[in-house]
């Protein structure tokens, strides 16, 4: 097996062994830090070691019995779900509008809408903090939702844009010619066809908001602190294993979202195969 060529033009597997080992090491480097936090979070001591000497749920208990942690988790969930709805609606509208009219000016509009993804987060953070100070939006849920929606819109626009690129506009024209209003044609013909892209845009928007730290550091505090802001302060000031328990739950959430995205895509493939 090892002496077989890796492909018709390739050297043998044995000669490439170093490559396999290197790639395995890099992948371990990438994945281990994401997963190691899960067993650590069940440790029964203040001092995190691997493998833990004793097991307990005390850090999960510490999280679920702390009003402060729970309040910030509720803030994060509220902000992330509002952001998901707002960013998906605004992003889908914009993406649809941009798709239907291709002109020189649209490149500028598209560029402006993608901008929040390109600009360093620290810049968005101090900018929002600065403008919000004048609008009394600092430390409000509205302010957080607006800032996170701005950050999430590019992801929705890209995802929905991909969907629209493979959608045949003639189907919508057919609906219009049969007397459907533009809105009805969009809702009954276009939207069902691009729903997979819209859903993956939603997942991106949710994760963008829920995991966002830097902007929240500046524009939220006290009762409106997001979960990640509280975690940041906690990590910087003391290493409290409660953060390990929260981190594990966030890792599991990421895995669930990843699996959901896979299912959405597979479902999409099946749906398009049916046609």
């Amino acid at each position, binding site marked *: 097996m090892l002496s077989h060529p*890796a*492909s*018709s*033009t*390739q*050297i043998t597997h044995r000669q490439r062994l170093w*490559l*396999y080992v290197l*790639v395995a090491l*890099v*992948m371990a*480097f*990438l*994945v281990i*830090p*994401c997963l*190691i*936090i899960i067993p*650590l979070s069940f440790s029964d001591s203040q*001092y*995190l070691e691997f493998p833990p000497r004793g097991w307990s749920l005390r850090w999960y208990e510490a999280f679920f019995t702390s009003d402060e942690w729970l309040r910030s988790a509720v803030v994060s969930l509220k902000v992330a779900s509002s952001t998901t709805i707002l960013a998906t609606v*605004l992003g889908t*509208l914009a993406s*649809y509008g*941009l798709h239907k*009219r291709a*002109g020189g000016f649209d490149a500028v*509009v598209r560029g402006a809408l993608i*901008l*929040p993804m390109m*600009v*360093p987060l*620290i810049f*968005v*953070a*101090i*900018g929002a903090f*600065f*403008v919000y100070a004048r609008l009394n939006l600092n430390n409000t849920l509205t302010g957080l939702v*607006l*800032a996170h*929606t*701005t950050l999430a*819109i590019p992801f929705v626009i890209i995802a929905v844009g991909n969907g629209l690129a493979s959608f045949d506009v003639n189907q919508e024209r057919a609906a219009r010619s049969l007397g459907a209003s533009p809105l009805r044609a969009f809702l009954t013909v276009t939207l069902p066809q691009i729903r997979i892209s819209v859903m993956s845009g939603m997942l991106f928007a949710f*994760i963008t908001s*829920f*995991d966002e730290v*830097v902007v929240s550091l500046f524009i939220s505090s006290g009762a409106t602190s997001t979960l990640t802001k509280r*975690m*940041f302060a906690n*990590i910087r000031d003391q*290493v409290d294993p409660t*953060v*390990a328990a929260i*981190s594990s739950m*966030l*890792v599991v959430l*990421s895995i669930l*979202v*990843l699996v959901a995205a896979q299912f959405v895509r597979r479902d999409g493939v099946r749906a398009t195969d049916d046609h």
Partner: protein
Amino acid sequence: MSAAADEAPSLNVELLGADERRHRFAMFGLSVPALLLVALVLLAPFSWLTWLSLFDASGALSSENYARLLRPAYINSFLSTLEVSALVTGICVLLGYPVAYLLSQLSQRTAQILLVFIILPFWTSVLVRTYAWLVLLQREGIINTWLKQLGLISESLPLVNNLTGTVIGMVHVMLPFLILPLYSSMRAIDPVYLKAAANCGASPAQAFRQVFLPLSAPGLGAGGALTFVLCLGFYLTPALLGGGRVAMWSTQIADAVSKFANWGAASALSVALLVVTSLILLLMRWGVQRLGTSVGEH
């Protein structure tokens, strides 16, 4: 009959033209809410801060804020930002290229499965990953404990709250940003070229060096530049793993605002950061286009 047919289109053209204009206007309208939001959160503060950076503390027009950027403390932070970003990008290229290469040579199915190892960290919160590195690298952390148990070291190595920790954490965050675009650009390289090279008598190593490497250069350039630019403005990991010893551009901006409430300095720093970032992105586009055409000519 023919006269009527001639007249009708001209009427229709006008109506269609008006309809087309109305349609385009309505379609533009759909982008307006999103545009307003970006204007509020991003464009308004940007213009406002740029404007502010042109005045000194007394409100007079001056270049004071930009002159301040030439002070040794700021110059040093620029240099260390460039240094850290270059180092992280270099390590990412060294580690990421072989991964992308191997994945691009495997069957689509196997590659899809292995890509999970790159996508999972990509989806995991940067804060969580940075925290994990803190737990792994700290003085009494897991890595130091293991190394001591193995008898390799007697004193804890200073792995975190310094440049080492910052670079390790940043490489972990940036690697997927390099691997994913590089992988898709390598997938697009037709294996027929490598077969042709083998037919012409090239050894696998020669075929790689003379055919694959140049063909993958545009993807590598784009991925590398993206990584470098992301490093320049990166805040979270240097702030948590640098222990205040790694002065990055982004941490300077944050300090100017949160510690000193010095908006003039923060604005000038941000404007400089944005200008440098955009210049690099423009250079990258130009470079990748040139690379692309020069490869295409061969």
